[in-house]
């Protein structure tokens, strides 16, 4: 296992995306455990991307600054015609060629839509197995890896062994704090502070078929608080009773600067649109406060709020599963409690 660990980085407006930073943390600990392998951060971009500094997209500017802090040995910009946008198969082809050129021992990506898709293509191209949604990985002998991964979107953990000359891994973006692998804070490369890792270029050989599927991105959606990033989410479930019952929750969410999220029952009934669903098949939220009203707390739902800081439940049933997952609970009908809470917040504001 002498070759490098490759870590695919996705960027957002502020540099390396949060999920990719988590992937970098796991990749760093893997590289250390594999006997001090290099950790190469991999980003994709259009031709010449590695020379662009200070312009958008700022591949060679923002990425290395973040990457150095995560203990990255070097940054490899995979660039070429057709790579200005997201092209899942072409990205996987680039990684396949990079694995071969550098004898990489592992490829790690965040378990986002893009990361999961690229790693799955890479598995299909190379014939290698993939371990998705990992939260911990360590070497276990020649061409073997011991790992913990999420099943049921994190409601169940699987201990597994991956037998592969190159481990293809995605990293869960929302592991529970107690389960997570903290990035190795004292790793050698992280300690030299401001010095940025070197940036190099890799030009993959791509054909038209590799670029057949590529994303056209339309303009950003209208601004406003998004469910995924909201600081406060007021949740409504079956107990809300029908579509009209959400007015009070909307009002409360507005007062708290948050948004309304709902359970799967609510979207299956057509009471609210699916984009408001919190859960395994909806949006994963990470608010400071999740106020879950009339929600029983099925694991399908709780998988969507594993990383909520504080959960407060309002429920008529003291034995509902949500009561054993929440920090605080009010036992009662949300149709009494929520209007009273709204009135109290308004009264406090008026006095």
């Amino acid at each position: 296992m002498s070759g490098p660990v490759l870590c695919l980085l996705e960027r957002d407006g502020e540099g390396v995306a949060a999920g990719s930073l988590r992937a970098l943390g796991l990749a760093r600990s893997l590289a250390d455990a594999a006997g001090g392998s290099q950790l190469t951060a991999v980003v994709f971009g259009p031709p010449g991307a590695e020379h662009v500094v200070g312009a958008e997209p700022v591949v060679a500017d923002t990425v290395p600054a973040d990457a150095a802090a995560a203990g990255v040995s070097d940054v490899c910009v995979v660039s070429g015609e057709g790579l200005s946008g997201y092209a899942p198969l072409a990205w996987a082809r680039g990684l396949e060629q990079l694995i071969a050129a550098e004898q990489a021992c592992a490829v790690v990506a965040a378990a986002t839509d893009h990361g999961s898709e690229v790693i799955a293509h890479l598995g299909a191209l190379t014939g290698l197995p993939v371990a998705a949604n990992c939260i911990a990985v360590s070497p276990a002998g020649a061409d073997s890896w011991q790992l913990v991964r999420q099943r049921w979107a994190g409601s169940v953990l699987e201990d597994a062994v991956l037998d592969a000359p190159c481990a293809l891994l995605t990293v869960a973006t929302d592991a529970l704090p107690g389960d997570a692998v903290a990035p190795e804070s004292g790793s050698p490369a992280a300690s030299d502070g401001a010095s940025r890792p070197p940036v190099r270029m890799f030009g993959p050989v791509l054909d038209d078929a590799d670029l057949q599927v590529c994303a056209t991105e339309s303009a950003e959606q209208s601004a406003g608080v998004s469910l995924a990033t909201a600081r406060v989410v007021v949740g409504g479930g079956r107990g809300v009773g029908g579509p009209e019952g959400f007015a009070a929750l909307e009002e409360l969410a507005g007062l708290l600067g948050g948004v309304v999220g709902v359970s799967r029952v609510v979207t299956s009934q057509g009471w609210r649109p699916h984009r408001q669903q919190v859960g395994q098949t909806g949006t994963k939220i990470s608010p400071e406060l999740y106020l879950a009203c009339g929600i029983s707390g099925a694991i399908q739902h709780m998988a969507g709020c594993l990383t909520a800081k504080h959960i407060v439940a309002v429920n008529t049933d003291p034995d509902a599963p949500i009561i054993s997952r929440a920090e605080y609970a009010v036992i009662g009908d949300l149709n009494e409690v929520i209007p009273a809470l709204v009135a109290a917040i308004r009264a406090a504001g008026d006095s």
Partner: protein
Amino acid sequence: MDILVCVKRVPMVGGKVVVTADGQEVDTRMSGFTVSPHEECAVEEAVRITERSGGSVTVLTLGPPEAADQVREMLALGAHRGVLLETDGREWGPVATSAAIAWAVGELGPTPFPLILFGNEAADTGGYQVGIRVAHALGRPCVTGIKRLELTGEGLRAGREYRGAQEEFEVAMPAVVSVKEGINLPRYPSLPGRLRAKRAQITVLRPQWQADGLRKVGLRVPASSATRAQVLGQGADAVPELMRVLGEIGVLPSVARPRAGTGGDGAAA
């Protein structure tokens, strides 16, 4: 158009998930089975396409003989034909499963299935890869995580949201598409649909198992998922306590934050 939809039988878990004593499976003694939610939407999408423009929907699953129940559930939603890739009950990994599906597509006769639909990921194992591996085995393009699907004659236009922006893909058919819940709202099965499903003949094929490279050692439920909430009170009487907790968490609007040591008179700043 003839559409193939691949679904997976998974335990129907409610408020709690329990692992069997040997740590190998989710305990299903107290629960039924269902198909993964994304896949139910894939079947609904396929049925809608054939309702609009003709053709047929074939539903395929890989699993033990009992998985025929899930095929029938999907037939009740309007699918036309059912296929069971029968296994001996052990868990098949994504490599073995996708190889079996690609093999079955050839076995199912001359119908080339210009469109093969999957759910984005299985509810239980969450491997995120069977659809993509099948696409590679069949030499087809593939898009995943799709929430909007539109057929355009020779191909299809597919869309999804990613990081708050809309991504659009244009893909030639034959193609493989995996969808996510929210692409549609699946119908409830009709009574005639259920009766038809009950009587339907299901084609059974027996594929070859193969090792995956990812070996399950055991399953466990994360320890941190069993606490018990501190009850703040009953009904509207609990609101003052609730206000105090929201204030401590720091989510009350600044003017509404009770000032410390004022006896909760709600004095505004």
